[in-house]
């Protein structure tokens, strides 16, 4: 196993192809629950968890059911179905077996049921041609990237809250402006990872 490629996949998915700030998927929770650091962290950890579970469930389905049957076009609808079921199942199971974890993640799990970032990760893993291990590493990276974006942005938002914003920009407008600036900053990572492994 070439570990170099796994590290490469991990780093690119965290920094270069950050789902929120570079691919603009999962903007809804990014803007919705990034007001406070503890909420942002809770949401980020839940997303990591769900992304990994979803990839573990969807990759075999694609490889061993859809591709042999030539039903690649069913990918999106089937993945939505699988992810929604999986998240619901996880929620029920967590409630029963690990109530403490359910209390901290439970609020966010329904929000992620059909989150586009989760769906995006599972589909991109297929289109990028990753094998199973690579897919898992990629989804871990994407989840970490989501967590990173959430945590960074909750810091930015708490600074915005304390600053004097022009009346017309108050609320969502200034948040979107700030998000675009954070996103610009992440473009800087583009060259770094490629050159690390050059």
């Amino acid at each position, binding site marked *: 196993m070439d570990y170099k490629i796994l590290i490469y996949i991990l780093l690119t998915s965290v920094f270069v192809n950050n789902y929120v700030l570079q691919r603009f998927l999962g903007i809804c929770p990014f803007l919705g629950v990034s007001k406070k650091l503890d909420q942002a962290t809770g949401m980020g950890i839940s997303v990591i968890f769900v992304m990994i579970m979803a990839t573990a469930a969807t990759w075999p389905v694609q490889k061993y059911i859809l591709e042999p049957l030539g039903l690649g*076009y069913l990918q999106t609808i089937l993945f939505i*179905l699988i992810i929604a*079921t999986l998240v619901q199942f996880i929620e029920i199971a967590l*409630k029963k077996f690990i109530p403490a974890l359910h209390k901290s993640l439970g609020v966010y799990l329904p929000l992620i049921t059909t989150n586009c970032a989760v769906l995006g990760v599972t589909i991109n893993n297929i289109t990028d041609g990753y094998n199973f291990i690579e897919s898992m590493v990629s989804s871990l990276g994407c989840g970490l990237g989501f967590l990173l974006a959430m945590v960074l942005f909750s810091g930015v938002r708490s600074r915005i809250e304390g600053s004097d914003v022009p009346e017309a920009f108050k609320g969502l407008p200034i948040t979107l402006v700030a998000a675009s600036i954070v996103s610009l900053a992440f473009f800087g990572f583009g060259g770094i990872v490629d050159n690390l492994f050059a």
Partner: protein
Amino acid sequence: MFVNVILAVAVLLVTGVIAAIILALASHYFGIPVDETVHKVRACLPGANCGACGYTGCDGYAEALAAGGVKTNLCIPGGSEVSKSLAEMLGVDAEDVVKFKAYVHCNGTPEATEKSAEYDGLLTCNAMCLSCAGPDACKYGCLGCGDCASVCPTHAICVEDGVARVNPDRCISCGLCVKTCPKHIISLIPEDARVAVICSSHDNGAATRKKCSVGCIACRKCEKTCPYGAITVEDNLAKIDYEKCTGCGMCAEVCPVKCIAVRKSN
């Protein structure tokens, strides 16, 4: 061609059915029975999560109500209406919500109190309090500059004879004055409270006597007189437990300095 369509439908159908079975089994075997009454009770509560009931938010109060043995009138934002609907749902007797009114625990008019200094500065209680705790000899009493009156949204407080007084008819028990008073001598007491201690001095009896003729001297007469054990002297100051107080007024009668006031009943 047709085979493809049927295959696609079949795959989706099978996946859907499997998903449904998994979820049904999961909720059957892992599902935790949720107490229906908790949900119903929770829906009745206003959801402000203010904590005035003494529980951790509305969820905590709902659970306690569903478990039983808890009064339905603890939700102050909800008022008597919520209490009534809760009582109806739970099949218990409704009790009206106890309303609170602000009360100034000081009666230190200029005639009654001694001064220890002359004050010639900014006329707010806060400024006064910052300069050697104010010019009055008693360091616990009302300064009479009306910081409380200026924050009161309903103009229920006015300073009369050097002491702030609350008009209970206008008070909406918002508690702004309680937070504002630098001496912390304003508190919220039940609306129907018949008696109230009008002193905040924690000095001992002899020291209080020298400074103020109407201050609590901690003689414990009220404590001994009260047939219900509702009044206790703690830290040189009488304190009334309104849960036990019946409003008989005996404490006010025996108080040698008349620092327990009888309020008019509504």
